[in-house]
């Protein structure tokens, strides 16, 4: 099976669908998260934190570029993936598209924490992917993501230490947590099963979610933050049966998005539409040639 993904032209429809679905999940999450992070440029609490968040934004954008580039093997182009795609065809989790309340620094920090833990686990599950390009790119991305997690945790601890910071973190957690759960929602359950069956990723979404909870729950509790609606059973095993009712109405993965996403989409496609563009400019070499 390992050989099948070596040559994208030979893929059957089922394999193509599994591959493109996986890559869109990955690329769209990174792209949209980066869009939101850039909003903090020139608006962060200090010049130093401004520089740090700008770094994260560029890292995530670079990762989106890496994943979209693998999609180009399947005949996609940047214009069809980003600037001309219908907004309802984007597959990112709603966690990354939600807008910030102005000045609420606890939001990008907590959002980054919830996302980066999931990202770390997801990348681990891709390390031995049967698609050699995916396995290869995971390594590059991992080195950068580790720093993001460190950055988020360091800020979490400082904010949780003060009354106002703690209160804000709790409010943001209440608001973001249901959306963070959509990170593990399926685009389509048959296709998600294929992703694992074909060895593209070696953990199911349920397994990733369980691992994610086992990391974030004790950590958030150590900062005296309460996780909404998660019960812990007697034997210290986390109650992870995520009730459908805990999920938000819009789950992103299935194409359902919050209103904020459509506004964001209008903004980032604005120039492309106004100038009547039909191509996107590349100024950097393709990832493989770097």
């Amino acid at each position: 099976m390992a050989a099948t993904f070596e040559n994208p032209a030979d893929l059957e429809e089922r394999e193509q669908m599994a591959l493109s679905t996986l890559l869109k999940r990955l690329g769209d999450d990174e792209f949209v998260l980066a869009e939101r992070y850039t909003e903090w440029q020139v608006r962060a609490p200090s010049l130093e934190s401004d520089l740090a968040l700008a770094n994260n934004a560029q890292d995530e954008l670079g990762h989106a570029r890496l994943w979209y580039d693998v999609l180009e093997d399947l005949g996609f182009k940047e214009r069809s993936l980003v600037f001309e795609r219908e907004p309802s065809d984007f597959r990112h989790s709603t966690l990354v598209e939600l807008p910030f309340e102005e000045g609420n620094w606890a939001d990008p920090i907590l959002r980054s924490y919830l996302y980066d833990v999931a990202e770390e686990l997801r990348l681990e599950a891709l390390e031995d992917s049967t698609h050699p390009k995916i396995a290869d790119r995971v390594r590059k991305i991992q080195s950068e993501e580790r720093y993001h997690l460190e950055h988020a945790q360091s800020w979490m601890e400082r904010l949780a230490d003060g009354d106002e910071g703690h209160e804000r973190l709790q409010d943001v957690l209440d608001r973001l947590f249901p959306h963070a759960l959509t990170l593990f929602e399926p685009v389509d359950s048959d296709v998600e099963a294929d992703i694992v069956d074909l060895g593209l990723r070696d953990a199911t979404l349920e397994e990733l979610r369980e691992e994610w909870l086992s990391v974030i729950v004790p950590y958030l509790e150590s900062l005296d933050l309460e996780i909404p609606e998660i019960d812990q059973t007697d034997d210290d095993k986390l109650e992870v049966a995520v009730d459908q009712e805990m999920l938000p109405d819009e789950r992103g993965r299935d194409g359902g998005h919050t209103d904020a996403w459509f506004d964001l989409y209008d903004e980032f496609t604005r120039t492309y539409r106004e100038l009547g563009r039909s191509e996107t400019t590349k100024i950097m070499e393709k990832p493989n040639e770097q």
Partner: protein
Amino acid sequence: MNVGAVKERAGPREFSPADDLPQEYREAATRMIEFHANSEIMGAYLERPFIRQAPSIDRKLAFSAKVQDEIGHGQLLYRAAESLGVKTREEMLDDLANGDGKFLNCFHYPLKSWVEVPMISFFVDGAAMRRQATLRRTSWEPYAHAMDKVCFEEGFHVKHGEDILKELMTGSQKEQQMTQEAFEEWWPRIIQFFGPTDDDSTHHDFASSVGLKQKSNDDLRNAFLDQYIPKAEKYGLEIPDEPRIRERDDGTYKVEEGDLDWDEFFTIAKNEYEPGVGQINGRKHAQEAVQWVRDTIETDTTAASGHAPQAAD
């Protein structure tokens, strides 16, 4: 050292925090570097929305990096200004928020569309490059040192700006026309970038006599015109009729200063031009919204006796 001794010794990178410098020098240098640092911040503030509006992922990445670089330049420059012992960074940033801090004329105008982006990132940044290159020989060593890094990075920004201009001017008729219109709107402002003619410049004489300023406004402006008029024409931009520009016998250019709107320029210089006031207040508002975080950090670092975690910056 008194002012006379400073004037006598004044040379490139001559003075450092180790020197005992007169208040007049310290204040003049602070004013100049603070203006420069503020301009980096307000330039970044103006450009940030175009990270989102950039029409490709690569352009978006490059533009995010540029805005980040400018914040980095601001950081470096405030440090160079702080080292004069006149004002702290906090005071300078507060003054910028409350409307007392001064910054470049071009960053008081709104930036509405992508076609205007190269007006800043090619022409204004190109003009800035010319001035900054001369400041590598300024007499305040920390300022000159900051200029080494700033000039290096600014070179990439100008190249990227030039590439954006070239793309627009080789694009559709519509793109070319929109870019020409943006150029006509921005051209007089760009020429005013270098400030009033030397005869009307308030601070020129002293700054020049103590080696802070290396070239006069007029010299810089003329050198810019010599270099950028041919570049604009090369990309198919037509130079507007006004302000009138005279070509000298040797092929160099000179602008008819009287054709420029100096009332507007001096309104801007007082931070009283309406769109600029909107931008100052917009940034102030954003800064106030995160004041609670700065308060938290301050308490935190005091309590932990300066042991702030490295990753949290």
